[in-house]
């Protein structure tokens, strides 16, 4: 989230699209209720199903799964055509005026540079025109035909209300009513917030869905302002933290990158990370990358990381592919190229796309190690449960080791909520039986492996032998020690860069914030964005002062948020070019003639003059990007792409299937279905009473929602002769499930491109262990393809068929 849960109360309009907050994030959704009640805010919901969020909305529109980009581009077109633009914001704080290369263009649903063979774009034309001084060419009048604004205008021109209806199935009158409601928020004193979740990410073009809304929010001037923003409602309680800490193939904590093979040394790696400002006087904060990177290397390898060995650069692996994400690993596993796999609190048998493939892949491992507080289907993937897990146990040669761990009630530490608050929690009870902390388990594994390398030698032991491990008890690193390590400390005295006589932090002390990190090896910090969370003031994540003097839901002294305890990202953009709040009734920061001050930590240097230094300090441009250059693989603007499995052709290009640059493994191509065989669109979702595959272990939740079902419209039920509560079989090209039919009015058929489209809703909470009845989940059916940029699997739009099932009803 750019903002926080409690900030939602400041909004005038909430749009929930790509999420279902009332059911999936109920207590956060209360802030929408608060805004409706106290501010008279309105709520719009756009969703294939009439969800419980929709049931309390002011306006609802249905949409065909996987067509959000067309809807969003239609909205942008409406704003431009009807002059619903926050002009001062757009002109000053976005790249609308930047000139783009002459060669860039779009036709037949594709941008310039497409190579069908490689399934990739040559992105060289997707860039700005740079002048001889190294800065960009701009036209502040927005008249130049090659400026971003005019290219955007041309790009969205095709998304007329008629076209939106044709692609998305949303009736024009509903689309127009929503556009009109949203258009009001182009006023500097009216704000819309976007709340989205996996309904937008689980698509082969998920990242472009989110960009589409971010662009709309910029055009309305809603980023950085109270009650505005792009608010990703993260799934699990510490998905945000695990992402911040870079537990991904290609990441280093704090959104730094693991090098690739094309960066054989430190100098080459750093060269592409110079982040020189593209306009004079701009901050371009990533220029500090070397300080964060060196501090990370010192944190990992201490004395072994020195300037003359490139800070132990070769201790880091170098990637040959963009990432060994989970889909790639299961593909490799299925090819027999992975031997050993660890699942720490993760149940991929049910969570990853295409369950049959998951089972086949896990069966080829030599060893699977599962660490979890609960039984999981993954740990028992080899166990036969009849139709629910029909495997040939004896033929599966995988050794499985299952290790019992603590759960939240039994440990101490911080979780990061959606609003980036690092909230510390404390141990309340003891672990059952022989269960252990994950930290203890990781320490045991590490110490044993290190010992083997000490004794036996072996492949490149250096990064293992030299890993810093200076914990008081090497077997049980404490949360306190680890939190301090992430914050970072001075290894030598750290002086002010502007005044070399001024000591900032003495050797051995915790750094106050990342402003004190250095690239000369005198500081260590595990995760630079967490610097400040645990400094000499103590553990700031444990703070519990819930006062809110401004009354705006800032809660600055409640726990700690990254970066620098800032609660609203880009908050400099909440004020105009003179530094005064766009809306004086909702001020978060303002320029007092000398400095920025207010209710939140300014997201800019405190003395940066408002007319000179622009608000988007992490970007080289200093402003935000309506045109994203070559930063995303599938285009600098979002363009409509069908899901890989779709009931209709792409209206712009009938040869194009799905996202033209998304990675598809050869073995999965033949597993894609077409609409002749699988005429219905399926989408997955969660229920209020359950959380993924955990709560089925709880008697209360298992009683509230005991049994797997699929949800269909009355029309589809009639067409297929399916009875209310009757048993149905649902199948895709990849698998099949049996379920009880929930026949509702919440899903209605839509007309898309002249064709009737039926939607089948598939909730995801059942498996074959736990207290609930045995069942299946959507991943028995879903395709093994991910988003082109980040490889999140396409769970939200795929094709199935359905029929009344012979045999017993499920219950």
């Amino acid at each position, binding site marked *: 989230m750019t903002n926080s849960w409690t900030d939602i109360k400041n909004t005038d309009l909430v749009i929930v699209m790509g999420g279902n907050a009332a059911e999936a994030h109920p207590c956060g959704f*209360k802030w929408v209720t608060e805004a409706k009640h106290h501010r008279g805010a309105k709520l719009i919901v756009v969703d294939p199903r009439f969800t419980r969020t929709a049931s309390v909305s002011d306006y609802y529109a249905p949409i065909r799964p996987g067509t959000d980009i067309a809807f969003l581009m239609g909205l942008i077109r409406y704003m431009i055509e009807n002059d619903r633009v926050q002009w001062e914001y757009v002109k000053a704080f976005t790249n609308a005026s930047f000139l783009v290369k002459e060669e860039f263009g779009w036709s037949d649903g594709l941008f310039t540079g497409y190579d069908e063979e490689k399934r990739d774009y040559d992105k060289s034309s997707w860039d700005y025109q740079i002048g001889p001084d190294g800065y960009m060419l701009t036209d502040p009048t927005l008249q130049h035909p090659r400026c971003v604004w005019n290219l955007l205008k041309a790009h969205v021109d095709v998304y007329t209300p008629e076209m939106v209806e044709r692609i998305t199935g949303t009736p024009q009158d509903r689309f127009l009513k929503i556009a009109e409601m949203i258009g009001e928020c182009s006023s500097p004193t009216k704000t819309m917030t976007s709340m989205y979740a996996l309904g937008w990410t689980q698509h082969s073009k998920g990242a472009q869905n989110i960009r589409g809304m971010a662009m709309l929010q910029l055009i309305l001037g809603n980023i950085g302002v109270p009650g505005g923003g792009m608010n990703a409602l993260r799934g*699990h309680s510490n998905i945000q933290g695990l992402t911040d800490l870079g537990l991904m193939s290609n990441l280093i904590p704090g959104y730094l990158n693991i090098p690739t093979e094309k960066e054989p040394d430190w100098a080459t790696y750093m060269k592409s990370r110079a982040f020189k400002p593209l306009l004079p006087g701009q901050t371009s904060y990533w220029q500090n990358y070397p300080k964060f990177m060196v501090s990370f290397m010192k944190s990992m390898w201490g004395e072994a990381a020195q300037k003359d060995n490139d800070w132990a650069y070769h201790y880091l*692996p170098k990637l*040959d592919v963009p990432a060994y994400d989970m889909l790639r690993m299961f593909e490799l*596993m299925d090819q027999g190229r992975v*031997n050993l796999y660890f699942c720490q609190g993760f149940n991929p048998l049910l969570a990853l796309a295409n369950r049959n493939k998951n089972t086949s892949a896990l069966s080829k491992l030599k060893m699977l190690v599962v660490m979890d507080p609960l039984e999981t289907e993954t740990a028992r993937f080899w166990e036969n449960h009849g139709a629910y897990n029909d495997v040939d146990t004896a033929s599966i040669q995988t050794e499985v080791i299952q290790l019992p761990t603590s759960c939240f009630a039994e440990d101490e530490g911080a979780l990061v909520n959606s609003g980036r608050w690092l909230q510390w929690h404390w141990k309340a009870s003891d672990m059952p039986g022989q269960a252990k902390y994950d930290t203890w388990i990781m320490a045991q594994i590490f110490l044993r492996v290190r010992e083997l390398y000490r004794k036996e030698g072996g492949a490149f032991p250096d990064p*293992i032998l030299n890993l810093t491990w200076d914990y008081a008890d090497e077997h049980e690193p404490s949360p306190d020690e680890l939190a301090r390590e992430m914050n970072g400390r001075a290894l030598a005295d750290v002086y002010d860069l502007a005044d070399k006589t001024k000591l900032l932090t003495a050797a051995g002390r915790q750094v106050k914030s990342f402003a004190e990190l250095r690239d000369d090896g005198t500081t260590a910090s595990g995760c630079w964005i967490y610097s400040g969370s645990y400094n000499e003031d103590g553990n700031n994540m444990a703070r519990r002062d819930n006062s809110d003097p401004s009354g705006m839901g800032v809660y600055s002294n409640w726990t700690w948020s990254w970066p620098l305890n800032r609660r609203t990202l880009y908050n400099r953009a909440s004020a105009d070019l003179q530094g005064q709040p766009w809306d004086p009734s909702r001020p978060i920061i303002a320029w007092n003639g000398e400095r920025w001050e207010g209710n939140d930590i300014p997201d800019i240097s405190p003395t940066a003059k408002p007319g000179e230094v622009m608000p988007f300090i992490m970007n080289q441009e200093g402003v935000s990007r309506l045109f994203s250059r070559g930063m995303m693989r599938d285009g600098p603007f979002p363009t409509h792409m069908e899901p890989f499995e779709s009931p209709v052709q792409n209206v712009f290009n009938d040869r194009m299937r799905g996202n033209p640059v998304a990675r598809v493994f050869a073995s999965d191509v033949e597993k894609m279905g077409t609409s002749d065989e699988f005429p219905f669109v399926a989408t997955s979702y969660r229920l209020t009473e359950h959380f993924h595959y955990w*709560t089925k272990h709880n008697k209360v939740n298992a009683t509230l929602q005991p049994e797997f079902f699929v949800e269909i419209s009355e029309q589809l039920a009639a067409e297929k002769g399916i009875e209310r509560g009757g048993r149905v079989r649902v199948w895709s090209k990849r698998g099949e499930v049996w379920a009880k039919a929930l026949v509702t009015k919440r899903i209605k058929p839509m007309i898309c491109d002249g064709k009737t489209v039926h939607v089948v809703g598939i909730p995801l909470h059942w498996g074959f262990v736990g207290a609930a009845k045995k069942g299946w989940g959507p991943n028995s059916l879903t395709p093994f393809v991910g988003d082109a940029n980040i490889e999140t699997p396409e769970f939200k739009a795929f094709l199935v068929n359905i029929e009344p099932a012979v045999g017993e009803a499920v219950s």
Partner: protein
Amino acid sequence: MNIDLSRRGFLKLAGAGVAATSLGAMGFGKAEAAELAHVRDFKLAQTTETRNTCPYCSVACGIIIYARPDDTGARRVVHIEGDADHPTNRGTLCPKGAALKDFVNAETRLTEPMVRRPGSDRFEPISWDEALDRIARAIKDDRDANFLATNELGVPVNRWTTTGFLAASATTNETAWLTYKVVRSMGIVGFDNQARV
């Protein structure tokens, strides 16, 4: 951090106080001391109250966990409720958070290390030591056999692709950081977490 214990102390005294006062009013003033000894402690007197957050969704509602020692002296969760001081949820919980106690005390909580041998149809207990030794040996052997030090151009790449690690979604940052250190130090690139899906 437990809440200031004075609340429990206060309840204990208040309970005794009520009994004694009413006895006194009924003319049994001298029985006060004897009665005090008979008044049963409130159950709350033995429970600890601990601040925590709901581990399910990213709203991260504040909760208070009530725990009491069982027969063996181990502290067990007896009740969980919303934390009224928490700015996000202000004491409220959804149907998931309200039933958290069932997760902590679920019958399907794991209590001892288990191993399923190749081809077997059951899990059998294994000691921690043996389990960890087997894992460490498997790591060492697979890494030594498959670690790629350089690519075909001779560029050092130091990666290991035949072992992968999926990290959790609800463990603490502190666990995540230690996990990061261990996994990265070995050169594992098949590293991912629940944010992917």
